[in-house]
C-alpha cells in the first residue's frame, strides 16, 4: 500500500514540478498543444528480465527444498529535464517459492544540482559508502540479507532507503548528509526463507518460528541520520562517519521476549583507502554505541561494539584479481554480558572474520568466475559464494552459483545457515 502511495506521490510531483517550471521553453515552442504530456521530456526505458531457480542441497526440516524460483522484470525509467533527473526503477516479481506476485520499488527519486557546491537526491534510492567488500561498518543503509543468501544477484544485497541525501562540496572537504524520516531496517533473516538459530528456543528454526518484530515505525519521530565527511588527498580517500538511528537488524527483544526489537544505535567511524604497492589497501573502523544499553547490563539488548576492517586487493595475473580482508568485531562490556546472560551458549567477546575474493575473467572477459569466501576462525564457520557468469551476447547472461555454509556450531552467524546451503542457475536478458 505504501509503495503505491509513493508512486502516486512521485507521479504527482513529476507533473507539478513540470507544470510550475519557468515556462519559457515550453511556452514558446508549444503554442498549439498545451497538454501536459507535450511538456514532458522524453523518457528512457531500460531494464531486464531475470529468471532463476535454486535448491537446497541439504535437508532442512523448517524450509522448502526450493531455495529460489522467481521471474523478475525490472523497468528502469529515467527522464532528464533541464532542471534535474527523474528516475523510477521497479521490479515486478513472480515468486514461485512464496507463490505470490510482488512489486519492489527499487528507486523513485529526483536529483537536483542547484549550484556548484550542492547536490540533492530526494526519494527512494540505493545508498552506499564505506570501504569494505561485502563487509559493512559505516554503511548503515539497509541490506537485504535474505536476497544475498538465497542467490539473487548481488545488487539486491542493497535494499533501498526512502531518504533525502544532501551533498555539499567544498575546497576543504565534502559532506554527505542522509536523512531518513522513517527508520528503514534491513530485510533481515526472519525464518521465512532461511532457517536460523533461535536463541529463545535454543535450536534451529524457520517457518515454524517466524520472527515478529516491533519496529520503530513513525514518520519523523523514528528517523535516521547518517553523515560522511570526506576528502581525497593525493588519491588517498579519507572519510569520517556518523550515524544516529537503530540497529538495522533485530538486536534485542522486548521484555516479554515475544518480539524482536531494533534498539537505538549510534555509530562513529573513519576510513582510508588508497594505493599500496601494486594494489589497493583500505582501513576502516567504527564504534557501535548501543544507546539503549550503554552499560551492557541488559541481556535483552546487544552490547556496544568496536568494529575494525583492513583489506587489500591486487591484480595477481592478467584478468585475475585477489582481495583479502580481516575484520574484527569486539563486544564491549563483555563481563556484564556474561554475568547477565539468560540462556544459551555465550558468544565470544571477539569475532574474527577473514574474507578472500578471487575473480578471473576469461573468453574476452565474457566469462567471469568468482569466488568469495568468509571464514571465521573464532566462530569456526565458513560461507562460500562461488559464481560463474557467462555473457552469451550483448543482452543475455547465464549464471550459476551457490551459497555454501559450514560451521561447527549451530548458533554462529554463518553456522546457523548450514541447512540453507543452496545452488542456483539463472538467466538475464537486459535491454
Amino acid at each position, binding site marked *: 500500500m505504501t509503495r503505491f502511495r509513493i508512486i502516486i506521490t512521485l507521479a504527482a510531483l513529476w507533473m507539478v514540478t513540470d507544470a510550475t517550471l519557468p515556462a519559457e521553453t515550453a511556452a514558446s515552442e508549444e503554442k498549439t498543444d498545451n497538454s501536459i504530456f507535450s511538456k514532458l521530456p522524453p523518457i528512457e526505458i531500460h531494464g531486464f528480465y531475470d529468471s532463476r531457480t535454486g535448491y537446497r542441497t541439504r535437508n532442512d526440516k523448517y524450509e522448502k527444498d526450493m531455495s529460489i524460483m522467481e521471474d523478475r522484470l525490472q523497468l528502469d525509467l529515467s527522464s532528464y529535464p533541464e532542471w534535474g533527473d527523474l528516475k523510477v526503477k521497479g521490479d515486478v516479481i513472480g515468486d514461485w517459492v512464496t507463490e505470490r506476485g510482488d512489486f519492489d520499488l527499487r528507486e523513485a527519486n529526483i536529483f537536483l544540482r542547484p549550484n556548484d557546491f550542492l547536490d540533492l537526491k530526494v526519494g527512494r534510492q540505493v545508498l552506499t559508502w564505506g570501504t569494505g567488500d561485502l563487509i559493512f561498518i559505516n554503511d548503515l543503509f539497509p541490506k537485504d540479507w535474505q536476497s544475498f543468501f538465497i542467490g539473487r544477484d548481488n545488487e539486491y544485497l542493497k535494499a533501498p532507503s526512502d531518504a533525502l541525501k544532501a551533498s555539499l562540496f567544498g575546497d576543504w572537504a565534502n559532506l554527505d548528509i542522509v536523512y531518513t524520516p522513517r527508520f528503514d531496517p534491513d530485510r533481515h533473516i526472519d525464518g521465512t526463507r532461511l532457517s536460523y538459530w533461535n536463541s529463545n528456543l535454543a535450536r534451529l528454526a524457520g517457518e515454524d518460528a517466524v520472527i515478529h518484530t516491533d519496529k520503530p515505525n513513525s514518520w519523523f519521530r523514528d528517523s535516521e541520520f547518517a553523515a560522511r565527511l*570526506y576528502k581525497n588527498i593525493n588519491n588517498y*580517500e579519507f572519510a569520517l562517519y556518523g550515524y544516529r538511528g537503530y540497529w538495522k537488524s533485530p538486536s534485542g527483544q522486548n521484555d516479554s521476549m515475544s518480539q524482536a526489537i531494533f534498539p537505538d544505535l549510534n555509530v562513529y567511524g573513519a576510513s582510508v583507502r588508497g594505493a599500496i604497492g601494486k594494489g*589497493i589497501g583500505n582501513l576502516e573502523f567504527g564504534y557501535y554505541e548501543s544507546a539503549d544499553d550503554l552499560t551492557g547490563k541488559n541481556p535483552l539488548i546487544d552490547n556496544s561494539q568496536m568494529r575494525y576492517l583492513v583489506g587489500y586487493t591486487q591484480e595477481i595475473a*592478467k584478468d585475475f*584479481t585477489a582481495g583479502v580482508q580481516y575484520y574484527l568485531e569486539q563486544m564491549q562490556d563483555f563481563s556484564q554480558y556474561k554475568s547477565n546472560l539468560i540462556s544459551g551458549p555465550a558468544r565470544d567477546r571477539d569475532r574474527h572474520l577473514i574474507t578472500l575474493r578471487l575473480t578471473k575473467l576469461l573468453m*574476452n572477459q565474457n566469462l567471469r568466475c568468482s569466488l568469495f569466501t568468509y571464514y571465521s576462525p573464532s566462530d569456526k564457520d565458513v560461507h562460500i559464494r562461488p559464481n560463474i557468469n557467462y555473457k552469451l551476447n550483448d543482452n543475455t547472461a547465464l549464471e550459476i552459483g551457490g551459497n555454501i555454509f559450514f560451521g561447527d556450531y549451530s548458533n554462529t552467524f554463518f553456522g546457523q545457515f548450514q541447512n540453507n546451503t543452496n545452488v542456483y542457475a539463472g538467466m*538475464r536478458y537486459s*535491454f
Partner: protein
Amino acid sequence: MKQILTIILILGLSLPLFAAGENGPSNEVPDVETIVNKANIVAYYQGKDGKAKVKMTVTNKQDQKRRHEFNILRKDTEDGGDQKYFVYFLRPPDVRKMVYMVHKKADPDKDDNRWLYMPAFDLVKRIAAGDKRTSFVGSDFLYEDVSGRSLKEDTHELIETADKFFVVKNIPKKPDTVEFSYYNVSIDRKTYVPMKMEFYDKENKLYRVIESAKVEMIQKFPTVVKSVVSDLKTGSKTEMEFADVKYDIGLKDIFQERYLRRPPREVTR
C-alpha cells in the same frame, strides 16, 4: 672557408625550425625522439581536453559481434604528461551508466589511479592498478592502446623514411613485462598521426596490427576517427569509431567522486 661555416651554421639553426613546422616541407628528417614525441602528442594530447562518442564493435573469428558504446572525456595535466580520463558507458545494457575513471601517470614507475562506479549499488569502487596490457572491456584493444603507452617504456629507432611515413621500431626496455618483442609504428610525415602499429611476438612473427582507418581534421587537429585492431592469432577484430569529437571544450575538473556518482550532462549526452 668562412662562407662554408656560415652556411653550415644557418642550416644547423634552421633545421629544428623546419622540423617543428606543422605542415612545412618534410624533406628533412628529424631525429627519432622528436618524431615519437610529436606522434605521441598528436595521438593522445590534442588540445587541452577533448571528448568523443565511441562505438566499438568486436567481431570474433565466428563472426559474432559485441557492440559497446561509451562517451570518453579527457583532460591533460600537461602535454605529454599526466592525464585524466572519464568513460561513461551507454552500451551494452548491463553496463549502462557505469563510469570508469583514470588518473593516468605518464611516469611508467608510477601506477595509474582507477575507479569504477556501479549505479545499481551506488558503489564507488577503487580498482587495483592492473596490467596495462589487459583487454579494454573485452575488446582487442588494450588499456595501453586507449590511453597511450609511455614513451619511456621503449627505445626508439627510425628504421625507414618513406615518402609518406616514418617507420619507428620500438623495443621494450623491460621485455618480460610485455607479450611482444617489438613493434613498428608508421607515422605520417605530414600530420604525425600514427597510421599503423605492427606488433611482433617473441618469435618475431607479426601477430597484431592497429590501423588508423580514417583521419579527419577537427578544429585543426588531425584526428583518427576510425581505428581497427586485428589479432592475427585469434582472428578477432575490433573497430572503434569516434563521433562528435570536440577539443578544448573547457572541461572543468569532473574527475572526482561527485561526478562519478552523477556525471554532468555533457558526459551523458
